[in-house]
């Protein structure tokens, strides 16, 4: 499966926490993810929610999604149209929650990706590429457990489908 869209980068690049993804000012009072999507990334980039297009990518450095466990963070990003987050590393709770709600996370070097660059993410071959510059990077394969959840449409659909957990326990998941 191939995803394509534009790269959106932020300051700071590292340690983008879930408060920055969706502020407590909104997430405690708004329960509709499409409404929350209008405020994603607002505290570090007030224009992002207006500018993001369906299919676009968030691109960041280390420890993306640290902080609060709020599942509104991956859900609101998905509702905003973000098709995947590409970062050097992810915080643990955000990592699990993103796959639980069907938002793929791509772990690879991101220093080479420019703001606004058009990217193609090939989930099958494990490659991120920028056709305009010809640059590309391989990403770590999505662990089997997370891939199963993604294939089933998330954690709760997985449980509905199988009547419980049906995961490959022999995999080498990182979290």
């Amino acid at each position, binding site marked *: 499966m191939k995803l394509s869209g534009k790269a959106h980068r932020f300051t700071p690049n590292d*340690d983008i*926490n879930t*408060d*920055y993804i969706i*502020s*407590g*000012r909104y*997430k*405690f*009072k*708004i*329960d509709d993810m499409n409404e929350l999507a209008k405020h994603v990334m607002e*505290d*570090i980039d007030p224009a992002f929610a207006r500018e993001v297009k369906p299919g676009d990518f968030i691109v960041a450095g*280390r*420890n993306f999604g*640290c*902080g*609060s*466990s*709020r*599942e*509104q963070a*991956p*859900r609101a990003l998905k509702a905003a149209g973000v098709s995947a987050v590409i970062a050097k*590393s992810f*915080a*643990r*709770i955000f990592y*699990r*929650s993103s796959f*639980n*709600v069907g938002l793929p996370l791509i772990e690879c070097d991101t220093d080479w990706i420019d703001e606004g660059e058009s990217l193609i993410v090939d989930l099958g071959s494990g490659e991120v590429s920028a056709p305009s510059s010809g640059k590309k990077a391989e990403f770590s394969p999505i662990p089997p*457990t997370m891939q199963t959840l993604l294939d089933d449409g*998330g*954690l*709760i659909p997985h*449980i*509905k489908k199988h009547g*419980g*957990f049906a*995961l490959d*326990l*022999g*995999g*080498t*998941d*990182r*979290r």
Partner: protein
Amino acid sequence: MAGTIAEAVLSAHSGGDSRAGDIVIASVDFCMSQDGTSTMMIRELESLGFSAPKTANGMAVVIDHNSPCPSVDVARIHSRIRKFTADHSIPLFDVGEGVCHQLVPESGKALPGDLVVGADSHTCTYGALNACSTGLGSADVAAAAFTGKLWFKVPGTYSMIVDGMIPERVSAKDLILRVIGKVTADGATYKSVEFSGHGIDTLNMDGRFTVANMAVEMGAKFCPFGFDDKTAEWLSSRGLGTGTPVVSGEDAVFEEKMEFDASDLVPQVARPHSVDNVVDVSSLKGTEVNQAFLGTCTNGRLSDLESAARLLKNRRVKRDVRMIVAPASRDVLMRAMDGGVVSALLKSGAVFVAPGCGPCVGTHAGVPSDGENVISTANRNFKGRMGNNKDVGIYLASPQTVAASALTGEITDPREV
């Protein structure tokens, strides 16, 4: 069964002999959510046809983040939570009972050897009681409640050895800030962190809760402490059982060992806007403070209030500084009243808000104005965290440093007042 505490607890809950790196499906003893994370969990559970939790000791929901309710929108969310918990006979800790991470331990739902999950990142707090507990998203907690189980990757363990004793007017908060400053915000991502040594043996339970609470700020999954007389006394004084104490076996393999000396620890402050941006208090001398906040799941316990009261007794918070106190629970507030702590704080000029999260998450009870500085005992200082992202600086420190700074109106070393 031996190994690290994380290995022992996950093995005991999955019926095998698991080691770091294995993936297990483990039975979960208890799960929890709060008012900011419950609606997504409720929707998932209802879509599954949920009737009652399958976790061994059930579940609870706590209304603590926006409590009492600040707006109509939030009131509707709270109503939804009340209806769900009533319909399914799930214990609800409603407005004014306190912060989830104080209420779960107080009610005996996180005992030694237990495996607990919560839809709040600071669920790692119960590690102080020799439990393995961790924060997760709402879908994971819904899955745990519905099936009684959850999948876990068994984490590797970092051993943090703290020698020496923490000096007077320096505290567990200073220790954990020092550790996070060194380890960094993602330095222990996914790991279980075990603290030990004389500096931990001599730390009271409230201090251990403070340390375990902030383990997630360096990315950790669990922060289980050993079980000792202090753990036993904390539990028995509340009429709670001792669970199944777990020790780190002699064969335990630690991925990393770090040593800290508590005896020369000085008050620490995390500067805006990240928790690992830690410096000695002296380097911030003279920084203006407009609001001082004492409370939260990190530092809203009785010892924390007592430490601040000792500094503030018979003195007056500086004019123009708002000193806000949010006790971690009703029980903490009542004990603080009995011991004269509440009266000392009130007489000094502090204002009390309801037991709960208080202004930590920025929805009510103390939102700062543009350009202001807050010194806070909370665990996060992200930009906008307290409800205003316009040049607000949140400085994280100990109860003693917060109290000392409230007295002078600038960031102050509590050993100098």
